[in-house]
């Protein structure tokens, strides 16, 4: 391995992404070349410095509490359960606060409003479904999209009998 080749794989070498043989060749070159050793040293220093710089920041106590609250049931968020055991008065107060916090409209009025809006929306949507579709935009006959971007995706039809590891290809031919 010469200097040019080493420089081309320096990132991979420092990130331990090289194969065993390439890594060995790189190590041998490093033993012989002080310039490339200096380059490796500078890159490692940069990595170390990045770690130090990033580690300076700490999340605030408010942020930590906010994240912990995400998993807590609603009624616990109203008062801090970790401080003391709630008594009956606390629970009653929490229930009243819950009511006051969430509902300011009189309940019958609010329910009527929700029913009216939902009914009209459903009726209107059904009418649109049976009328002509819009003149532009995306038409899709796909299945429902799962949150596939949050983990290993696709479980679907078995096409493995066609898959021999080849590369997709596109060409044209006469009909």
């Amino acid at each position, binding site marked *: 391995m010469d200097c040019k080749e080493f420089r081309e794989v320096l990132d991979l070498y420092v990130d331990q992404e090289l194969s065993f043989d390439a890594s060995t060749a790189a190590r041998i070159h490093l033993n012989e070349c002080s310039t490339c050793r200096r380059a490796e040293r500078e890159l490692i220093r940069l990595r170390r410095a990045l770690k130090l710089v990033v580690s300076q920041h700490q999340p605030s106590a408010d942020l930590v509490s906010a994240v912990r609250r995400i998993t807590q049931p609603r009624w616990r968020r109203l008062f801090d359960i970790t401080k003391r055991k709630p008594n009956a008065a606390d629970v009653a107060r929490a229930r009243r606060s819950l009511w006051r916090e969430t509902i300011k*409209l009189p309940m019958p009025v609010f329910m009527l409003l*929700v029913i009216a809006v939902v009914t009209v929306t459903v009726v209107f949507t059904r009418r649109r479904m049976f009328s002509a579709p819009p003149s532009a935009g995306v038409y899709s*006959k796909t299945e429902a999209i799962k949150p596939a971007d949050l983990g290993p995706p*696709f479980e679907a039809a078995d096409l493995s009998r066609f898959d021999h590891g080849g590369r*997709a290809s596109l060409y044209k031919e*006469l009909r």
Partner: protein
Amino acid sequence: MNRYTRIALILLFCLVALTSDGGSSHLAVKARPATDDLRRIRFDVTTFEEHNGRRDVISETTVEGPQGTDFQIKLQGGRFQLDAKFLTDLVAPEVLKVRADLNTRRLYGYSERNLPLYEEGAQKQALQLGFDEKLVLLPFGRNDNSDQLKIEITPEVSGQSAYLASGMARPLEIKILKASPGGAITVEASKVPHRFAVEAVLLEDGREVARGETNESLLEEPQDIVLKPTEQAGPEIVNNPIILKLDINRYLRSRPTDQIAIAFDAHSPERQRPGQPPPVAFSAAGIAELGSTLPYDLSDYYLKSSGRKYELRLRVKLAPGEEAN
């Protein structure tokens, strides 16, 4: 205002928006005379399984729309995924220009930390396709010795006019003639403008000193725009020309105006080292409404020692003759 009251108000607004949307979209569509004979194009997308010379149809779908209709074929297997996008333009009476963007993903194992490992492929291809020809897509490549999956895309001129008798544009149509088992193969279609006019202006302390324009920038096709110095430009500007390599890479439907996503490099052609691509002086991206101006401050990148303020302003509109709907 508490949360539920807010929810109620939002629902009310949605209701108003829904009821007004039907009316306004009617008004927004340009009326066309019924005699206009703009043709529609239909693409027959048929998937076959080939084995020992025998062909079995696995799925069949047709996509029909006006000229410039784009479509996407997705193939989803247990360990394999293909996403093939096709941008089509009618460039001559019997010739389609098809730009294909193929992306594949194949699961081949798990890392030491148990994350899935994929082998990914990406290809771009541009083809001219006559109506006496068809495109053949082999998602797994060619394999004459065993089962082979083949997708054929055949263009046809549709008998239907692009416009209804009322003058409204005829909508895109997708018909599934035979559904693929397990929904493995799906087809989507869309119609967005492909041709754009771009205006790029370089300002020095607020004065225009260079300008570049093009009326034929294609969606997803990077293009070079040379900023030519104007009369007000000094010798420094003349001796340091800028070239923009601009890519309009997405068209986004939005309200009140549609938007485009762009990305570009601004570089000087003269500071090239031998054997090296021209060094990039400035790279950026952005999303803007059609017709609006995107400003970029180049003062830190261009003629920095002069102490003057340099600003690049980009404006993208539809090309003459191109329609948003």
